[in-house]
């Protein structure tokens, strides 16, 4: 297990290094002069020179990259050019919208998908199975930002149960959760559809296994065998998908935050793009990639701990 974890740790570090190089290259090398890019065509030469000095652009590339990475490791993400605030502060403010939103959506998607997938698998080929599989086909085909607009039309504009957008802050937790409910539902829909399909097919694979026949032969009913033996084994691929989905949820939040005018990381990155504030864009993207790589690392370790076969194979 320790060898497995160390191996994973090496590839995790390698991924992070390559990812940071790619992001640094795209943001700071490809545009030529980032300072001129950020200030636009009408900028005065002395303004550009001032920004160049502030960003340390006169240093060699390697030194700039090293400074950026060592800054991030110490929690210093640089200074935003448009907000005149440390990027770390901006991120700290916004993350309390995006992270709860992604977790809320993940919880909703799991809560819906598990029962739906298990029910469909246990009624394979029946009317319930067909209905659930049909619903998941729709779920993966609906663009979630459009679904969000429909939710607003029905539940905010017509029924007036929720507000159409905005975020009141966490001072009143109930109001905050209420404000995140429609966005979380919109975000969760496609993920729930995918997860339900994976849950169903993973369970169906297990139902054909020898140990299920043994369980039935020793007198367990279909239902007992499913709950006691099949479900546990079926959870391994499901866990992997949940880990992968977290990255989709974080990224998807960028778009859903636009629909609901939520002040999260997505809006931050989006406003930074419009303002050409590359320092913010670079740091937020790196943070998102870091989170995704970390989540996948944790999922890998978790199921290696659960399933010894995976350790042996790696």
């Amino acid at each position: 297990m320790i060898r497995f974890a160390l191996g994973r740790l090496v590839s995790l570090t390698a991924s992070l290094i390559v990812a940071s190089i790619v992001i640094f290259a795209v943001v700071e090398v490809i545009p030529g002069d980032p300072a001129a890019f950020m200030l636009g065509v009408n900028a005065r030469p002395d303004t550009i020179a001032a920004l160049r000095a502030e960003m340390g652009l006169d240093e060699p590339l390697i030194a700039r990259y090293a400074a950026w990475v060592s800054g991030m490791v110490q929690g210093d993400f640089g200074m935003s050019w448009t907000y005149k605030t440390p990027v770390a502060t901006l991120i700290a403010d916004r993350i309390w919208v995006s992270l709860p939103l992604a977790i809320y959506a993940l919880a909703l998607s799991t809560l819906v998908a598990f029962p739906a997938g298990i029910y469909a698998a246990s009624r394979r080929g029946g009317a319930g199975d067909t209905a659930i599989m049909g619903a998941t086909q729709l779920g993966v085909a609906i663009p979630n930002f459009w679904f969000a607009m429909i939710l607003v039309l029905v539940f905010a504009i017509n029924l007036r149960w929720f507000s159409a957008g905005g975020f009141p802050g966490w001072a009143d937790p109930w109001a905050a959760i209420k404000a995140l409910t429609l966005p979380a539902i919109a975000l969760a829909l496609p993920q729930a559809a995918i997860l339900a399909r994976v849950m169903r097919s993973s369970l169906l694979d297990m139902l054909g296994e020898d140990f299920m026949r043994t369980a039935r032969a020793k007198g367990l009913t279909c239902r007992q065998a499913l709950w006691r033996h099949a479900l546990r084994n079926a959870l391994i691929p499901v866990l992997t998908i949940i880990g992968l989905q977290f990255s989709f949820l974080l990224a998807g939040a960028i778009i859903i935050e636009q629909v609901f005018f939520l002040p999260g990381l997505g809006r931050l990155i989006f406003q930074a793009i419009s303002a050409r504030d590359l320092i913010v864009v670079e740091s937020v993207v790196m943070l998102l990639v870091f989170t995704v790589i970390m989540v996948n690392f944790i999922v890998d370790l978790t199921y290696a701990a659960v399933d010894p076969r995976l350790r042996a194979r790696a």
Partner: protein
Amino acid sequence: MSRNLIIGAGLTAFFTGLAALSFLWTPYDIEVLDIPNRLLTPGGAHLLGTDHFGRDILSMVMMGARTSIAVALVAVGIGMGLGVPLGLWAAARRGSLLDDVIMRGNDLVFAFPSLVIAILITAVFGPSAVNAIIAIGIFNIPVFARLTRGAALPLWERDFILAARVSGKGAARISAEHILPNIANLMIVQGTIQFSLGILAEAALSYIGLGAQPPTASWGRMLADAQTLVSIAPHVALIPGFAILLTVLGLNLLGDGLRDWLDPRIRVVRT
């Protein structure tokens, strides 16, 4: 042929047909604004109504179909064009350093949240349909590379490959002449699925303003424009959404149907 295949092929043909027809004819010119006739409800002279500039929604849906299909198709082309050769190469040199490098590179691309990187690319290079294609296309490469390698590996153990090697063919010729035809079905099915994901990704990018730019019509852009009108003219927001939904649904059903139809083993299980 299954019901999925027929419905999927029908929907796909319908929207591809709309896109093709838009090259020759649309009911109205979408670049002409007609403010007095804005936000008309469906029916009458405008079959699907008009938007806030009085443009005919049916015409815009037809032009949008062209953008969506073109972007997604080229993105799948990039993914297949680079991913399949990489996968074949990795399989031919299985276990070597090259194989390892290709597959590690794939893992790395998978680790990036695709939408975030698409946003990064369009942020630096400017929003346009071409940059959207590149951003979506890059993430199709590892999908095809991994699938190709996985499907090609067991084939390399088969007798007919041994026979080809005995007859003096090199790895490249064997990959092209013997491996590729055997995995083509799988690629077609995956291509259909990636096509539908490409349509969704293009819609999302153009919804946040990072895809095709006006005056090029796109479904995501139509939804972004309609967002503030959703309470007074819901049809303006509903119609482009249904166009995306039906196209993606059609492609997914087509992919499922093709898989069942092309893979005899699955067909036996079902009948």
